[in-house]
């Protein structure tokens, strides 16, 4: 990532998160957000994390080169799901994912 790209991404993202963190506190002054807005905001984490995972794992025509190249990450993901549900730990999930992925791609 070049310095220019870095500055654009960093400054813009820093400003939007600052606005989301600070503005409601000063503008709403203790009033509630509209319930519909609050509900929609609540759906963002599951939708966004699912979109990120799907973007990493799924591509049209992913099995064109045979099952394994795209299948190995899918199998490793199942391992991660189990570890994540059991431990609820980001660190253990990352470790389990990397180990499973490395072993599966060696097959």
């Amino acid at each position: 990532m070049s310095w220019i790209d870095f500055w654009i991404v960093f400054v813009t993202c820093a400003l939007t998160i600052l606005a989301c963190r600070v503005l409601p506190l000063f503008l709403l002054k203790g009033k509630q957000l509209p319930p519909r807005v609050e509900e929609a905001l609540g759906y963002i984490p599951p939708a966004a994390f699912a979109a990120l995972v799907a973007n990493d794992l799924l591509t049209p025509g992913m099995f064109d080169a045979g099952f394994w190249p795209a299948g190995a990450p899918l199998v490793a993901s199942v391992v991660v799901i189990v570890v994540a549900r059991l431990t609820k730990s980001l660190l253990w999930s990352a470790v389990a994912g990397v180990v499973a992925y490395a072993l599966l791609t060696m097959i």
Partner: protein
Amino acid sequence: MFTREDISAAFKAAVPIMLGYVAIGVPCGILSASIGLNALQVFLMCALFYSGAGQFMIPNMWLAASPVASIIASVSFVNTRQMLYSTAFAPWCEGASKRLSFWFAATVTDESFGVNLQQFERGGWSVPKATLVNLCSQSSWTASCVVGVLIGNAIGVPLAIASFAMTSIFICLLVTQKLNVANVVAALCAIVGVFACKLVGLSGPAIFFGALFGVACAFVFSRIRERA
């Protein structure tokens, strides 16, 4: 502004967050190094952006060759949930000075939100103490990420491995969400949305549009269920 008692109470409350941030911050630094970010860039991100999910998303989307505009839109979209936290803290900040309230609000994260809200509700908590919890957490996050960059530079993690570590982190964040029907609809529709975007050649903004589609579907779904 901060008394001795504030500092010791805040530190005690912040320790679990600080330890958790070491465990996530070091990998975050290693992954940031894998896309060529240096220690100064990572330090700036931790000091002025300070978002765990965001700091994982930026390297991840960069590796997936997402356009800069898509990275910004997706990261900002995910971070709009901070508005919920900001709203929740407003009543507790009424007596505090504007400058301190600003500082406090600007350094809230998912984890410190949970800890501070619990303390405010329990009583005997104050905005200075809550701000100190945030600052302790941020210091731990910043130090851990910078150490991670140095480790990453020293060992040189292969990109495929680094990239799957990020995928694993998102999987963990996904499966530890509250499991209710509307959230499942949001997640499934987001997955369908991402795939559909890629099918029509919109792989750049796929994450943003996919997530937006997921939120819209869950919203419509719960309206329909209300009526039924």
